[in-house]
């Protein structure tokens, strides 16, 4: 057994040498820093460093659950993440299917470029554009005023914050997310479509019977990954768009931790505890989603 294993390795030695950098990368940058989670159970003393700081058991977690702002952030994270999976996730699939229906190649490329472009603009810039568009004297309010209606406070209204988050993220990321589906569609054997056409299938029937089943596996994998990221909720976007007026609906765990750790000077221990709490939940969600997909007869990740 032992021997066979060694032989196996020796036989594929070139492949293992090629794999080495990737393994090293993960060890160095992903696994090694994990010792930092010890902070969640310690009182951090800057001079002593992480390993020598004193243990305090579950104190940091108790501190955390006492804070009402944390639970508000927790609730918002769940709501915003579910919203993203329900609204933003299918949008990319829909766009891929629509672009695929465009007959002229040049036009297809053009649409794809236009939709993908916003992905490359950072949220800092997008938020600036959105302020110009949505502020009190912004374009949208000027149109509303010209039509004789009262101006709206789009950016500070807690009721409008989530819709703005979803819409702006769809606008920014939809093209980018659609690429992988378009790639999957491009890999479908054209003979299938020819055969379907011979059998008299229309565009809609071709989409239902060929295109969708061919990308369903890809969609399932991406859905698992999206669920596994559910506790993150998109720090970049929210941090650049929110303000105290919308904390009630827009403050997520990540933004709350950021403010608590750095602006108000809470302890690093408590904020690490939040991070660990999030990671454990994400892990559970990922496995849960994976299990569901497999149960439903799809290919899982793990």
């Amino acid at each position, binding site marked *: 057994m032992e021997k066979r294993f060694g032989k196996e390795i020796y036989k594929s030695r070139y492949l293992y040498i090629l794999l080495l950098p990737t393994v090293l990368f993960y060890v160095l940058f992903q696994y090694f820093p994990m010792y930092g989670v010890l902070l969640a159970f310690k009182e951090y003393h800057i001079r002593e460093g992480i390993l020598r700081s004193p243990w305090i058991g579950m104190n940091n977690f108790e501190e955390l659950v006492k804070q009402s702002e944390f639970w508000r952030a927790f609730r918002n994270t769940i709501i915003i993440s579910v919203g993203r999976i329900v609204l933003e996730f299918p949008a990319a699939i829909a766009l891929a299917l629509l672009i695929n229906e465009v007959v002229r190649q040049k036009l297809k490329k053009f649409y794809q470029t236009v939709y993908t472009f916003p992905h490359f603009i950072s949220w800092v810039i997008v938020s600036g554009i959105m302020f110009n568009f949505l502020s009190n004297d912004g374009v949208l309010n000027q149109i509303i005023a010209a039509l004789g209606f009262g101006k709206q406070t789009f950016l500070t209204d807690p009721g409008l914050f989530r819709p703005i988050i979803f819409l702006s993220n769809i606008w920014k990321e939809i093209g980018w997310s659609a690429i992988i589906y378009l790639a999957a569609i491009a890999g479908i054997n054209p003979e299938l479509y020819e055969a379907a056409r011979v059998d008299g299938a229309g565009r809609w029937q071709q989409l239902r019977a060929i295109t969708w089943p061919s990308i369903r596996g890809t969609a399932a994998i991406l859905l698992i990954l999206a669920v596994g990221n559910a506790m993150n909720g998109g720090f970049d976007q929210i941090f650049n768009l929110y303000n105290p007026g919308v904390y009630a609906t827009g403050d997520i765990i990540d933004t709350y931790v950021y*403010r608590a750790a750095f602006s108000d000077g809470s302890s690093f221990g408590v904020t690490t505890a939040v991070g660990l709490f999030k990671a454990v939940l994400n892990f559970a969600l990922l496995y849960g989603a994976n299990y569901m997909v497999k149960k439903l007869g799809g290919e899982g990740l793990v």
Partner: protein
Amino acid sequence: MKKAKLLGSAGLSAVMLATVLAGCGNDSNKEQASSSAPAAASSQAASSASASPAGEANPYAEHLDLSVSWWGIGVGFEKHDEMLQKLEKDFNVTLKPMDIGWDNYKEKAQVWAAAGQLPDIITNSITNDNPATYNEWVKQGLVHALPDDLSAYPNVEKVAKAPEVQGIYREGKLYAIPRMTYPNTDLWAVDRAIYVRKDWMEKLGIQDPKTFDEFESMLTAFATKDPDGNNKQDTTGIVMNTLGYFKSVFVPTFPQFGNQSWLKEDGKWIPFYASKQMDNVVVQARKMYADGALDRDFAVEKAGEANQKFYQNKAGALAFNVDSASGSTGIRAEWEKNNPGQNFFDHVKVLHLWPAADGTIYRHTTNSWWSETMINADVDDKKLDRILRIYDWLLSPEGKEMFDYGIEDKDFTKSGDQYTITRPKDGDSYIDLKKEYPSMDIISQLAMWRNVSAIEDSPINRAAKGDDVVQFVQDELNWQMQNAKPIPTAFEIFTMSTPAKDKLSAINFDDDFTRMILSKDDPVAMWHDIVKGYDGKGLQQAISEVTAEMAKQGK
């Protein structure tokens, strides 16, 4: 063949590995310290540095590298101009800039502290803003205590012995050099100003407001009565540089709100936000927002962003400070850029506040400093001495002369008390020293803010800023001194540290106040709720502790 294959894949791996590890290495290409022979300390430095005991070797003999953090120091030191060179040569040091930004400097200091990468000279603002963090840093030994005997550095000693600094000693030791803003607390009077468009007031027939209600209706009129006559609803009442400046609007309603201090109410010392007087403030602030008297976008604008609305004639008032009118990037220059051919002072004036309920007009005042220099605990005695010598010189009259006039025999000549400015002119005024020496802004403010240099009536200011600006600042200062009294302030509580009071730093008043203004719920009920929430952060405990501490001092 096999070998080639092995070599090939190993080589490919090596390339990939190098790519991975490239991010790992730290930037260790340290600049070579300048190899020039150590310059003898210049007479200026020597005269201000302590008289070293006879026989002691030249204190500047050894060349030292000092890292220093400051807002935007990267850009300021980029040119390595003559002023920076002079300082480095006189003290035989190389200054290594470590950049911080206004938006993130507190976070950065915490991150550096955690990573063990604090600079030798740390620019910080925790003694006032966050005594809890200050205690933490002292307790964990991150910063160096100043020597007990500072007689060798008389100018630093003066700061360390100032009565208001005594509150930040810990166990009899001082761990920070406060960056004094003004030599006394009176001069804060011009650190707040409400600029208003007097031409708009005239057009709408509005007199100077005598009460908050009159003030509020004036701003509402700016937003609703088309003061610029373009038949469009495109103007707003008041905009602010930052929320802090806007708070002075409520000083007549509740004086201590203006400087966010503690006050005695019903026999207890309480922070301003827990006072009954907040009820009036929240009602007024909400009304301003609802009526459009207050800029609708104030909560989403970044610092300084809203000033543009004032420059572009879209806002009738701007909350900022008096000296902001001066300088090539000041609000006067910016306004005139947007209104070519018009004189700022013909259209804009500073609005004076109305009397409070007790009939007194109050003016702004606050602690003598809010930020400070700290010295890294890892600094050895040699470096500590050098840093203190530099600071002693920065705080000396010779230092002030350089920051006022530039470099002697280049920018000015001196005979007795007579200064002759010899630096080049740009148009009809002398070129700005800060343009000539980008590092000056930073070096001159390392040890103290020198705000007083900017607002004093001196020939150099008249030459640099123009007579009308200097006169404008002086008039405002005189008016405040003659007509207004400083906000009654318990200065000692700013830096007081008690276990529960230190935890109050977790309260973010500005966020909650903003949230209250934007909300549609009843402002008073909402505010009471918010303050009740503060009890969970130890507010009542802090009140008891501070009240007990003040009782000890007979207050």
